[in-house]
């Protein structure tokens, strides 16, 4: 887990692909004064983080999950997150190389967004804003102020 400490808007991102983690951290750099991205390498890590989160630490404003990860994949992690009362309603996104209908339906069932990973720069340059659009309106304003 890599962590940039702050009490501001916290986005959690789990992905076993280091290149994709670096890319998404870079995409959020434009909002670095308002957003901290905390990265995890699998579903187990992100669940452990959420379970150990104290009331003194900021509640994440968005959770982004890759689907294909070792130990615990993004779909199972999402299911477990929705079972945790504190995070049952938190905005979440399945962010994946998949474009399969069954994965989209799974995201819908668990009240999460579904975004396919970008292939080129045209899709990449808007990705941070697309993620932020899934946050609550209040958080979106805070991030973009």
């Amino acid at each position, binding site marked *: 887990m890599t962590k940039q400490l702050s009490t501001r808007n916290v986005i959690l991102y789990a992905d076993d692909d280091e290149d994709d983690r670096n890319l998404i951290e870079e995409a959020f750099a434009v909002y670095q004064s308002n957003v901290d991205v905390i990265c995890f390498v699998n579903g187990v890590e992100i669940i452990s983080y959420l379970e150990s989160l104290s009331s003194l630490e900021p509640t994440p404003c968005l959770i982004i999950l890759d689907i294909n990860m070792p130990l615990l994949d993004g779909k199972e992690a999402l299911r477990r997150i929705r079972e945790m009362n504190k995070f049952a309603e938190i905005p979440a996104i399945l962010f994946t190389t998949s*474009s399969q209908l069954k994965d989209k339906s799974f995201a819908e069932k668990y009240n999460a967004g579904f975004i*396919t990973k*970008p*292939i080129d720069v045209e899709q990449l340059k808007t990705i941070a804003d697309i993620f932020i659009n899934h946050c609550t309106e209040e958080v979106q304003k805070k991030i973009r102020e």
Partner: protein
Amino acid sequence: MTIHNFCHLPYAEKIKLLQAEGVYVGKQKINGSIILLFQIYSFYVEIQYKEYRKKIASVKVTEHTNVLNVYLLQIDINELTTAYK
């Protein structure tokens, strides 16, 4: 969509279609360059990057399944084999 039709699509259309319909197969790195393989319809598309997910160096299309070999070798089946021990 045939491989012939796909090859004749404009670049932007190829990428759009690949993202909407392609199934990600795997990733490899050759001399620092990242290559992603997708399966779409009855053929395969390899995207080689100059800069990962930013600048595409080449788009190669093939119907030959031997393109899979290098990606299949990367699949870790340890979890599966240990589960059945």
